[in-house]
């Protein structure tokens, strides 16, 4: 488990030190002069200089409102904003750039779908007798919107359970996905268990019964190459949501991709400037997509930052990022296995999972683990990671989670593992 071993790890990004130098915060020192070991990227990722610079350049030189402003600054700002949409569309291989909507975060993107379905009339209408299917490993942001929808429409919420290994229990698929199913909403990669779900197979099954499929790609977009246009149509979800701040972009922006036909059939979400065609006091007509779903001044400088972020990730290459994550995850799983009394929640094979690893240690509460690590400069997350039902499924109230990203080194994993050994000894275990 020495850094000699680490350096020989297959799949690591070759120019890791160059990449690290792109992220100013990584050279920060914490209390007591500790270097920062940031292992909380599934919570939010750090930002490379190029993203920060793009935002600063926009604010210092091109700031203006978009669409509505016809002057030179307005044209520059609008162009930068719409260019960001093009970049994001390319990042996920969207069949059409107009299908890419900017929201404030992934949570809003998921709520947008649930809310517009609540008001839809006609074929998309949700009501009594209809069923919405989610899974027990969802983030709260992909649970609560559907609870609200079903409570408000009289529909029924159902969910996939989990196997002891942390996979979806697919044995019940034919019972769960039926003619009554209107929507199946699931995460691509679990933010707690790390599990990568068989999104294509489930989508295909859901489409057979005429259900819409919503994929929460908040943890997938940072680490898996996504190419919607390349997916066979019956395996392509109808919606895909992710959030800017986890793909090295800023907060304040999220993305919802939706298939054109569905977006066009849905009623508007928020009403206001930009989403209208004509407004009369009596009633209004609405703009086409994407604007129909973007009421008010959009997150302009955030889109500029997000555009720079996905460009940065694409330049590194999502295949390379994914290989790096897998290498580190495998290395971390090995290291964690050396800590007595430590139990990993979720799949133990790095090839079946993403880069977030949640675990418990017998006799030390996750808070206390995280506290000891923090004093050593190691940032991890402790709690239920907004996935309380998944924790309940495994009989735990909370866990400690380490999560790596493209700037994480094996040496940082070594530091984590050593600190966990220290934690046990500190608490006299």
């Amino acid at each position: 488990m020495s850094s000699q071993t680490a350096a020989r790890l297959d799949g690591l990004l070759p120019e890791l030190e160059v990449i690290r130098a792109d992220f100013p915060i990584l050279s920060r020192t914490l209390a007591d002069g500790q270097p920062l070991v940031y292992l909380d990227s599934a919570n939010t990722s750090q930002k490379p200089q190029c993203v920060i610079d793009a935002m600063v350049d926009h604010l210092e030189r091109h700031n203006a409102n978009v669409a509505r402003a016809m002057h030179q600054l307005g044209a520059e700002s609008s162009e930068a904003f719409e260019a960001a949409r093009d970049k994001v569309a390319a990042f996920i291989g969207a069949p059409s750039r107009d299908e890419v909507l900017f929201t404030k975060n992934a949570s809003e993107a998921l709520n947008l779908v649930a809310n517009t379905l609540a008001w839809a009339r006609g074929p998309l209408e949700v009501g009594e007798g209809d069923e919405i299917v989610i899974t027990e490993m969802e983030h709260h942001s992909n649970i609560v919107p559907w609870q609200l929808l079903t409570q408000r429409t009289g529909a029924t919420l159902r969910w996939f359970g989990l196997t002891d290994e942390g996979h979806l229990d697919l044995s019940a698929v034919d019972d769960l996905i039926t003619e009554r199913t209107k929507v199946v909403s699931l995460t691509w990669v679990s933010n707690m268990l790390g599990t990568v779900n068989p999104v294509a197979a489930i989508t295909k099954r859901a489409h057979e019964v005429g259900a819409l499929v919503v994929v929460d790609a908040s943890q997938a977009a940072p680490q898996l190459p996504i190419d919607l246009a390349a997916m066979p149509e019956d395996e392509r979800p109808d919606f895909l949501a992710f959030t800017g701040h986890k793909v090295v972009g800023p907060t304040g922006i999220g993305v919802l991709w939706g298939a054109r036909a569905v977006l066009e059939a849905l009623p508007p979400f928020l009403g206001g400037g930009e989403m209208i065609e004509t407004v009369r006091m009596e009633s209004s007509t609405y703009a086409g997509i994407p604007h129909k779903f973007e009421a008010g001044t959009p997150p302009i400088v955030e889109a500029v930052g997000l555009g720079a972020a996905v460009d940065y990730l694409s330049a590194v290459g999502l295949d390379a990022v994914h290989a790096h994550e897998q290498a580190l995850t495998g290395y971390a799983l090995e290291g964690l296995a050396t800590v007595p009394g430590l139990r990993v929640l979720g799949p133990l094979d790095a090839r079946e999972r993403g880069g977030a690893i949640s675990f418990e240690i017998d006799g030390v509460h996750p808070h206390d683990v995280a506290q000891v690590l923090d004093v050593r400069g190691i940032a991890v997350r402790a709690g239920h990671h907004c996935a309380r039902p998944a924790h309940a499924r495994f009989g735990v109230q909370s866990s400690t989670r380490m999560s790596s990203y493209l700037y994480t080194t094996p040496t940082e994993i070594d530091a984590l593992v050593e600190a966990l050994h220290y934690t046990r000894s500190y608490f006299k275990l």
Partner: protein
Amino acid sequence: MSAELDSLYQEIILDHYKNPHHKGLRDPYEAEVHHVNPTCGDEVTLRVHVADGVVADVSYDSVGCSISQASASVMTDLVIGKPVAEAMAVHEEFLALMQGKGTVEPDEEVLEDGIAFAGVAKFPARVKCALLSWMAWKDATTRSLEETP
């Protein structure tokens, strides 16, 4: 500065703006559409009458800037009397000119007075103005054809 403005506001454009051709709504027609530029509020209501595969009449009522008004006027000159397929081809040519960012050389044979809009292509914010009535015409014509089997 004035040179830049002059490339946008060609005399031909200002003439059509002041004296628009074919303006006003007329019968008969198979389809009427209403198009809006939501960012600036320019609006056009436009009717198309197709007879024997020919664009027999295009009439319209509109509010908007010099570019959008002149464009409607020039458009009617260009499409009225032409077979639908040929008019659509002119539409394509105008669209290509507008989206060319100033790099497309306009063909006077096809576009006639429409070549005056070449300068508009260099003003991205105004391209929508120039296209408003053309888009409305295409929409209405497509609907007319659906109406008349």
